[in-house]
Each structure stands twice: as C-alpha cells, then as structure tokens.
C-alpha cells in the first residue's frame, strides 16, 4: 500500500470513496507521522484520541451512505481557531490552558463536512510574525533544508500549518492571513495557500488579531485541494456581521485548466529594488507559463504599493491593541497578582508576563497611533492611504482578470535571522500585505526552487469573491511548473 501521508486531499477523498482504506487507517498513518516529526514542533497540541474518535464516526457515517465534502480527511487546525474542549493558545502564554466552551464557525463547517482534527498547529504568537519564532511554545522548523543544513523558519504566522502539510503530518491545514500569514509560509514550505476574500469565511471563534484584515483559508498540497477545502470552510454566518451573504460556488468546478483569453496583470511596482535575481526569474517564468497557456499578459500599475507596509503596520497594531485589551487576567487566561495589588497592577503584571515581545511592541505601537494627538497623523492617515491602495486594485481590475506577482521576496531564511530589528522582519510581507489591505483573494502556488534548493511561490491576486479565477489560473501555473520537489525524507 502507498504511504497514506503522501496522498493529496483529493486522492484521499477518492480513495476513501472507493473503499481503498478507511478514515481510521488514514488518520492512524498521520498520527504516526505527527509523532515521527515532533522535532519540527509543528503542533502545540496533538489530539490523537479525538482524531481516532472522529475517524471512527466518519467511517460509520460513510457506511450509512452519508459523506461530506471532506469526509474522513485528517487535517491540522491552526491554534488560533477556538475548538470546544481543546486547548486554544494563539501560541501565547496568556492563553495557556484556555479551553473554549464553543467551536469556531470554520471548524464547525469543516467537521460538519466530515474533516478529522489531528491537533492544533503552532503559529506566531497571536498570528503576529513572519517566521513562527514568536510562539511561546517554541519555534517551528521548516521540513526543507538549505545546502548548509541549517534549521530554517517555515514562515509565519501559519508556520505550524505549513510545516505539517509539507512534512506529511496532515493532509491539509487551516491557516489565517492578516498580512500574508497563509501565503508566505505556503511559499516557504512549498505548498499551496489561499487567503480568500475578506468576508468569505466567518471570523467567529477565531482569536482576533486585526479584525478588518483577518481571514481564514486553506493550506494544502495542491490547488485542487485548496478548492475542495475552501468549499468546506466558507459560507455566510450570522455570528460574524462582516461575513458576506453570498453563495459558496463549487470551487473545484472552476479548475478547467482553460485560461485562454484571460488577462493577467503584472504590477510594475512589485519589481522592487534589491529583488533577488532568482525571484525575478521565477516571476518571468510564471509569466511565460500563463502566456503559453493562452492568457494575455499586460502591465498594470498599483502606484501606492510602496506605502502598503507602512499602512499595514499602523492599521494592524491599532486593531490589535484594541482586540487584545480583552486579555485582562480576569475572565480567562493567565493572571499574575501579588498581595495588595490594585486592579491596574494586576492588569499590568498579567499582560507583561502573558504577552511576548513582538505582541507587546505591536500593542504599544497601536496604542500610540490611536492616542490623543496622534490619531489623525497616524491612524486616520493610514486609513486614507488604505483607500488609495484599494482604489489602485479596483482600477487595475477594470482591465485584468487576475494579477501575478511573487509571494515573498526570498526563500525561507535561517532561524534567528531578521530578529535584530522588527522592521527587517516586516519586509517579508511586502508582496502579500497590499492584497490584504484591499481584502482581495490571494493564492500562493509553488512554482520553482531557489539556488539553495528551497521552494519559491508565485501569488495570484483576484477580484473580490472571485476565488474561482484565482484557482483556475493557479491550477494552470501548477500544471505548467510541475513542481514535484519535496523536502528531504518526504520523497514519495
């Protein structure tokens, strides 16, 4: 029998349907893989017993002729989704031991569609980071290695999700993306990551970072898998007032492989100074693939691109400072208090002990830009620039169907790099943040290897609620690039 952990989501779905194996067998294989790869630290909490219970229930359900879209398929859940009765930490010390009394809407949808949860995947603390080095529960290690064999970051913030999928510790995983947290780690780990349109998936029950930007999405081995999983996650939810009341299409049906006559925009502002030659080449190769498939490639301009990171690093911390005010040491999470302490002492000690450095920095920057005297100069100004960025995309999409750009300016870097200066770390998100600010769907597809033999992804950005086009074009890129490389030890 083939190694069940090498299957794609689609293959496993079809194999289950044919009766080649059961969900219990599939789940057991992934539990073994999870144990074998503990050195990567991809999971904060493993839930093998729950997984086997869910798998048994799924096999019984299937025997009765009832199978959901992801029936019996074992996946990892980013530890930012509240899961009923299962510790949910957001990779923060302040939420250590927190067991939600409710299930997030996205995980509810996935479980109703038959998915099996293997465990809760590691991430940057409160999803704030691009390297998964800010987790209280330790760094995640990328299953890929460069030539010198050093441990590399998996990207962030959904680094555990990406590493788990790349190393065959889950068939797929949920991620969340605020400024690139699905797409950048997907690129670093050689997998597919889709950030849907803002509003496509409910945010209810996801630990909030920046509410106007946060969006859940699938992290998978293939574009088809992303289409399958998004269909099982998405949908309107009355519990999230920003969740869009739009129908969920059959995303898989969009994968026709036919992009003849489609117009693909190439934004010249993404050809940044100091862009590594291999990223330029990756991009040019992608352009050639789409042209060969019959698409028309045209230049577009997104003039405010260079201001996106600055805008993001005002808007996201401002919203975070407000969202994270709820961690008060009172209602849930860690409390630090000494005899005779005032309420303020208790707040200040609990939050100092509970939050890591990067989270503290972002809360304080956010507090500063929202404070009296600075609100207009920073926060309001950033919101106005955000509209300019939004308008840039709207104008571009007046003439093109999708935009092609690199996902990240480099391949995965070594653990410990870019740690000396917070701003250096922020630059990893330069190509992903603009689409986040505009709320647009973005898909990262692995299309090549760096000189070091590390995966590199290209990103497709689409119109609001047009994930179908992004997936269709992404499918063509995937086929044309024929990216079959795997991390050492994972070769099928």
């Amino acid at each position, binding site marked *: 029998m083939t190694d069940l952990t090498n299957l794609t989501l689609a293959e496993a779905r079809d194999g289950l349907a044919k009766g080649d194996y059961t969900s219990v067998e599939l789940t057991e294989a992934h539990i073994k893989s999870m144990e074998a790869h503990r050195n990567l630290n991809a999971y904060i909490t493993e839930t093998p017993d729950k997984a086997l219970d869910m798998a048994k229930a799924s096999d019984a359900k299937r025997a009765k002729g009832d199978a959901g879209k992801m029936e019996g398929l074992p996946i990892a859940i980013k530890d930012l989704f509240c899961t009923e009765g299962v510790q949910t930490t957001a990779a923060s010390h302040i939420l250590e031991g927190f067991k939600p009394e409710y299930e997030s809407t996205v995980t509810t949808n996935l479980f109703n569609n038959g998915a099996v949860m293997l465990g809760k995947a590691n991430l940057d603390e409160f999803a704030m980071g691009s390297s998964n080095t800010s987790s209280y529960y330790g760094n995640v290690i990328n299953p890929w290695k460069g030539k010198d064999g050093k441990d590399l970051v998996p990207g962030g913030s959904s680094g555990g999700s990406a590493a788990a999928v790349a190393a065959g510790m889950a068939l797929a995983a949920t991620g969340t993306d605020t400024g690139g947290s699905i797409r950048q780690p997907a690129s670093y780990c050689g997998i597919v990551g889709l950030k849907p349109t803002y509003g496509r998936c409910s945010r209810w029950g996801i630990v909030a970072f920046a509410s106007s930007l946060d969006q859940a999405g699938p992290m998978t081995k293939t574009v088809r898998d992303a289409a399958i999983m998004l269909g099982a996650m998405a949908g309107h939810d009355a519990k999230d007032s920003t969740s869009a009341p739009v129908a969920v299409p059959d995303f898989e049906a969009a994968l026709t492989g036919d992009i003849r006559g489609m117009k693909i925009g190439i934004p010249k502002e993404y050809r940044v100074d100091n862009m590594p030659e291999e990223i330029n080449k990756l991009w040019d190769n992608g352009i050639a693939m789409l042209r060969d498939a019959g698409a028309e490639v045209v230049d577009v301009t997104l003039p405010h691109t260079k201001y996106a990171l600055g805008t993001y690093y005002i808007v996201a911390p401002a919203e975070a400072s407000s969202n994270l005010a709820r961690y008060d040491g009172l209602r849930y999470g860690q409390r630090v208090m000494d005899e005779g302490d005032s309420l303020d002492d208790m707040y200040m000690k609990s939050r100092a002990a509970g939050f890591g450095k990067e989270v503290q920095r972002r809360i304080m920057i956010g507090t500063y830009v929202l404070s009296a005297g600075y609100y207009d100069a920073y926060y309001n100004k950033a919101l106005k620039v955000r509209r300019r960025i939004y308008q840039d995309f709207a104008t571009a999409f007046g003439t093109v169907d999708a935009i092609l750009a690199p996902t990240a300016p480099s391949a995965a870097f070594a653990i410990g790099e870019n740690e000396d200066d917070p701003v250096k770390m922020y630059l990893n998100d330069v190509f992903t943040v603009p689409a986040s600010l*505009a709320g647009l769907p973005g898909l990262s597809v692995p299309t090549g290897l760096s000189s070091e033999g590390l995966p590199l992804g290209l990103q497709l950005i689409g119109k609001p609620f047009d994930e179908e086009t992004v997936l269709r074009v992404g499918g063509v890129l995937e086929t044309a690039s024929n990216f079959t490389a795997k991390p050492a030890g994972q070769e099928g």
Partner: protein
Amino acid sequence: MSSLDKETVRRIAFLSRINVSEEGLGELAGDLTRILDFVEELQEVDVEGCDPLTSVADLTLPMRKDEVTDGNIQQKVLSNAPMTDAGCFVVPKVVE
C-alpha cells in the same frame, strides 16, 4: 523623524496596561522609534479628498431583532476564569 523618549514609552505602556521595567523602556523606545520612522513615509502621500477606509466589506451591517438568543450558561462563562466566587469573577479590591 519622530523619536520616542522614555517618558512617552512609560505613558504608552500604562495606557496599554503592560508593566515595563526601567531597562525595558529604553529598548522599547528604540524599537518603537524604528517602527514609527518606517511608517513615516505615509506622510508624503496625497490623500486630499480621500475618505478613510474602515472596512473592505462592501455591505451594510445587518440589523437583527433585539432579543435574547442564548443564556443560562454561567458555568461555561466562568469555566476559564483564573478566580471565581459565588458565580462571579473575582477582581482585586477597587473601592476603599
């Protein structure tokens, strides 16, 4: 160039309700100043006549009936609290 001094950081830290040590204030002043310098370039963007964008969700927030839809879950609400007493959250004494 905006440069944050220790006193400003102390004030922000209090507004954020995060305890910061005396040495920590200096380090944070450096980090936060670097971040503010980084976002400074936004000042050069012409936003004349541009409304702030507060949400990309192109919809009117839905209204619903003002009615109780759940409740009677006191144990669930309290189950993760660090300290409870008689069905209430326990806070430090706030009234002398």
